[in-house]
């Protein structure tokens, strides 16, 4: 199946309609020409004093407005580039033995802000092990490494924009930001989207984490509703009996600009 056909299958209904839609596929008409500009409050600020490392790493000059041109509305095809292996989306089978911890299935969809699923896009994850330790040479805190857990995975969304990982529930861990600082348990997510303008790196949290009120990274997002969009939900229906718990988390990347006035270029 060509890439163009794959795009359309994701939007189509039953078989006949898919055939019809494939014939009118148009890479110009089907590529958003401009993306929605996000309100400032939708994202955390780069200058956020409670998170101390932002101090020397945030630009102080005003950002310069960039119109969305062909460079910003296009994006890479990474399926071949990253050479996906079958075990890449199951972080519990990448070593000789099984990792220690609570086995979980994390799944969801990648949509744009119009609710359109984004197919064939790269989703990458990395995380600490069940004890809250990363398999990284600079993570030196006194929790055990797990020889059977690296904590990295990747997959492509399917035609419906869906992704799924099997992994171990990560533990919370201390860090040096302030006295008695702990990060809520989280899985790092990297999303390429389908355009340079959609690129996102974020963190998925777990419901009811007791560290939420104390974490400056989580609370750097000022709006409570926006913070909730980073928290997964427990899903008993997708839990596999005698095997794994299930958490759902959908990701929304910027969608097409909806009005011509949104992006006038002067």
């Amino acid at each position, binding site marked *: 199946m060509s890439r163009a056909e794959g795009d359309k299958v994701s939007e189509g209904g039953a078989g006949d309609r898919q055939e019809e839609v494939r014939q009118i596929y148009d890479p110009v008409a089907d590529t958003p020409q401009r993306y929605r500009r996000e309100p400032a409050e939708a994202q955390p*600020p780069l200058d956020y004093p409670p998170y101390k490392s932002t101090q020397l*790493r945030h630009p102080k000059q005003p950002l310069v407005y*960039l119109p969305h041109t062909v460079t910003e509305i296009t994006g*890479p095809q990474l399926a071949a580039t990253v050479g996906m292996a079958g075990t890449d989306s199951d972080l519990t089978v990448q070593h000789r033995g099984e990792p220690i911890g609570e086995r979980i299935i994390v799944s969801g969809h990648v949509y744009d802000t119009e609710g359109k699923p984004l197919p064939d896009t790269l989703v990458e994850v990395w995380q600490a092990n069940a004890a809250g330790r990363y398999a990284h*040479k600079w993570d030196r805190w006194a929790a055990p490494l797990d020889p059977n857990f690296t904590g990295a995975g990747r997959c492509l969304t399917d035609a419906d924009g869906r992704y799924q990982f099997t992994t171990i529930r990560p533990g919370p861990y201390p860090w040096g930001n302030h006295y008695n600082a702990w990060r809520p348990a989280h899985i790092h997510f*990297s999303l390429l989207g389908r355009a*340079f303008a959609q690129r996102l790196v974020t963190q998925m949290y777990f419901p009811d984490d007791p560290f939420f009120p104390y974490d400056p990274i989580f609370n750097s997002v000022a709006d409570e509703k926006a913070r909730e969009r980073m928290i997964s939900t427990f899903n008993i229906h997708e839990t596999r009996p005698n095997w794994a718990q299930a958490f759902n988390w959908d990701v929304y990347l910027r969608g097409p600009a909806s009005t011509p006035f949104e992006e006038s270029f002067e």
Partner: protein
Amino acid sequence: MIFEVTPSQTVGPYFAIGMPYEGGNLIVPAGTRDAVTITGTIHDGRGDIVPDHLIEFWQPDGEGHFADIHGYGEQSTLEGFRGFGRWGVEDGDGAYEMVTVKPGQVPGPGGRLQAPHIDVTLFARGMLHRVVTRIYFADESDVNASDSVLTTVPAARRQTLLAQPTDAGYRFDIHLQGPAETVFFDI
């Protein structure tokens, strides 16, 4: 219905356990004719090198053709051209290195050709979302002078966006703060 975006969070200090992949910095295959190496360092507000950064390039080939996931526009026919590069290492000396070809010109606002440029995304610990900049080329002063994006940048700051020629290709350093602070874009 319009949904709200998922907020960004920092890439943190440990992305290198998951983000690198084989040949990630090869935007073109090694040995490609006219390949250049673009290298540089990232500096914080004290001028210190930021070694734990993750940097990505997105660009067209020398003809101005992308290898686009949508199939938008004329597609690159350069053998093995990815258009995308990523650099982020567990324990590097702080300099990134991308192997690529100099991009060609692509249309901009009003259909006018833009000066050759590469879109750059930079992530790091201490940054709650990405910053975006563009690499232009110091040896393209004629087209740079009339570029519809570059000319919107305050004149005194434009040189922060110019990659300087070297023996192997180009050098492009990024300063997050300070007198040489790089221009970052509101995308």
